[in-house]
């Protein structure tokens, strides 16, 4: 009999019941909640006269709508304000822990969960948010759900699920300096496509993944959804355990020791079978830049914008043409000739302390180029911001001409006041380059924090591996 994958183990240990036909009831350990996808779920709960099954399993935070400028002034957009206030009211009515907008611990839901140790190995973690895959970096089964499912988890602590397939993505080699977790995951998506992982739970492994910090691993798992997979995950190792020790929600005392020994099992067995295996050698991987309107439309910094005429699939060809028209790019143009006028360093993909350090290292002592209209740094949480300020990173950014903001989703999706205008072009450390994602008519190029910083300084995309020489 072959062994189990990490996903098999996580699935089996959360099975409350299994019905014929493959439908299962899966127990949920941690439920993260934000203001955008929860109001209708709480309303449904109320209308049915139900209460949350286990309020203690829930951690709530407003992040999508919050202003990144002075919080003391409140939220000026009345519609956004109502949504955030609705979350506050729901949390107090149902006895749910919430880090409110003015709490130091407030931040992007996928940043604060791990930061607090509220995401633990072996857990099932859900949130009404597709980037919940981020938490899989801890050897957890974490995935995004819709609002009806949010209500279902609130009411029952369970979800009705069907098991996905097992897919392994092995990244071998060692990353060159200047090449980061973001480049790895963009390259994976470029390789397998945005539907490449649909129907699968992804497990990332290989030397490159093992060498990544927890923050880098979160960046990789964060974008599993951009490869079509609801869940991405990474086996537990010493890096995982070292990260968690002492965090506020992590187990303490005797429970810590028990937990650590149990977590040793959270990896795929050597003889586990995967339905699909992809291997990637990252030894020669160059920093990546997206050129289109889907995260799979990505290439290396030293490449050129691809030519739709060279694509044989007619649907893809048309998609590429639409994307190039929207992005206002010509086939054959060097990626290094693309000139962004906005730079956004933030989002649940890349707004943790290591991301800010990587960007600051490129910027230190330099200035934002003249052609850049706005350069924003939006830390992932209040605690990340505090840490960055303690290290003086805020001054590195502001002295270079960046704006240093309060934590939230900000220009990742532009639900608050931070957004691109039509025709603006942005070097962004976020995860989606869909049409209009950062503002209607706005053009997004996905890159790593170091690459965004290098573009800010140079005024065009440039290879951060050589940025020191310019």
């Amino acid at each position, binding site marked *: 009999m072959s062994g189990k994958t990490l996903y098999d183990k996580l699935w089996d240990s959360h099975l*409350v*019941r299994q*019905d014929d*036909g*493959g*439908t299962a009831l899966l*127990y949920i*350990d941690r439920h993260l909640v934000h203001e*955008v*996808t929860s109001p*209708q779920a709480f*309303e449904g709960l109320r209308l049915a006269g139900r209460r949350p*099954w286990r309020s*203690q399993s829930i951690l709530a935070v407003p992040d*999508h*709508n919050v202003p990144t400028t002075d919080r003391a002034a409140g939220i000026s957009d009345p*519609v*956004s304000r109502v*949504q955030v206030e*609705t979350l506050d009211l729901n949390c107090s009515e149902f006895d749910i822990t919430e880090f409110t907008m003015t709490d130091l611990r407030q931040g992007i839901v996928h940043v604060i969960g791990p930061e607090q140790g*509220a995401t633990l190995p072996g857990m099932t973690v859900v949130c*009404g948010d*597709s980037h919940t895959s981020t938490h899989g970096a801890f050897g957890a089964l974490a995935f*995004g*759900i*819709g*609002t*009806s*499912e949010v*209500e*279902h988890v609130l*009411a*029952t*602590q*369970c979800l009705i699920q*069907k098991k996905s397939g097992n897919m392994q993505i092995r990244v071998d080699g060692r990353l060159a300096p200047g090449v980061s977790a973001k480049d790895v995951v963009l390259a994976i998506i470029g390789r397998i496509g*945005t*539907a490449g992982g649909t*129907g699968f739970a992804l497990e990332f492994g290989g030397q490159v993944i093992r060498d990544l910090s927890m923050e880098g691993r979160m960046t990789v798992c964060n974008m599993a959804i951009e490869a*079509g*997979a*609801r869940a991405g995950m990474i086996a537990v190792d010493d890096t995982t355990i070292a990260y968690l020790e002492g965090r506020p*929600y992590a*187990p*303490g005392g005797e*429970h*810590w020791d*028990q937990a650590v020994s149990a977590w040793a099992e959270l990896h795929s067995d050597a003889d586990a079978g995967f339905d699909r295996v992809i291997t990637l050698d990252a030894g020669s991987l160059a920093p990546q830049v997206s050129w289109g309107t889907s995260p799979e439309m990505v290439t290396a910094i030293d490449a050129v914008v691809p030519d739709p005429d060279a694509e044989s699939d007619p*649907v*893809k060809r*048309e*998609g590429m043409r639409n994307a190039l028209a929207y992005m206002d790019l010509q086939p054959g143009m060097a990626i290094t000739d693309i000139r962004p006028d906005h730079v956004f360093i933030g989002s649940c993909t890349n707004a943790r302390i290591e991301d800010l350090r990587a960007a600051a290292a490129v910027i230190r002592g330099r200035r934002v180029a003249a052609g850049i209209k706005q350069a924003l740094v939006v830390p992932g949480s209040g605690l990340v911001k505090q840490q960055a300020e303690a290290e003086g990173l805020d001054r590195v950014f502001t002295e270079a001409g960046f704006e240093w903001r309060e934590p939230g989703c900000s220009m990742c*999706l*532009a639900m608050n006041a931070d957004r691109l205008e039509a025709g603006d072009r942005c070097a962004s450390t976020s995860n*989606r380059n*869909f*049409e*209009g*994602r950062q503002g*209607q008519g706005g053009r997004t190029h996905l890159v790593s924090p170091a690459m965004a910083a290098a573009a800010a300084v140079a005024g065009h995309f440039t290879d951060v591996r050589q940025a020191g020489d310019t």
Partner: protein
Amino acid sequence: MDKFTVISGIVTPLDRPNVDTDAIIPKQFLKSIHRTGFGPNLFDDWRYLDHGEPGKDNSRRPLNPDFVLNQSPYQDAVILLGRENFGCGSSREHAVWALLDYGFRVVIAPGFADIFFNNCFKNGVLPIVLDSVVVDRLFEAVAGSPGYTLRVDLPAQQITTPEQEIIGFEVDPFRKDCLIQGLDDIALTLQHADDIRRYEEARWLEVPWLFDK
């Protein structure tokens, strides 16, 4: 949830791959705390020539004549025909609420993103996966005769074309049952409340730290 049995209606072709949920309902409309009222802003960026905001009177906004929903007879369509990876991106259920609010009850495509696919079933919308060759043929048929209709019979798992051709489709039996009966799956799950409690007790003994905070 509205029950779903048999639905006939006009097919709207949306001929592009990777239609994401940001495109189906742009972010500014997610600020609503309700489940209804999203229909007028379905595909807002593609459908109107100006920028939409919640509260704006949509009836006075300039329409994009090139967008399929603004062309006759597609205003009254109930079936949406899409391409690969339909509904990718954000988990926002608002995307399904917008489709439903507009009047769509069926989406046909060669492939769907998982979360969107799930969300459809929770709201009485039937997502149907058909082979891309069949989808290609439907796109051609629709282009050849605008106003082309299909009849979708969920109990029989069959689509019937105007030429009386029958196309079978797959659907998960549990989800099919929920759709046909319009079942509330929370009530269904709560029938197993004892199982959930038993699971919790066993789990608490095994991994007590998960119940600390």
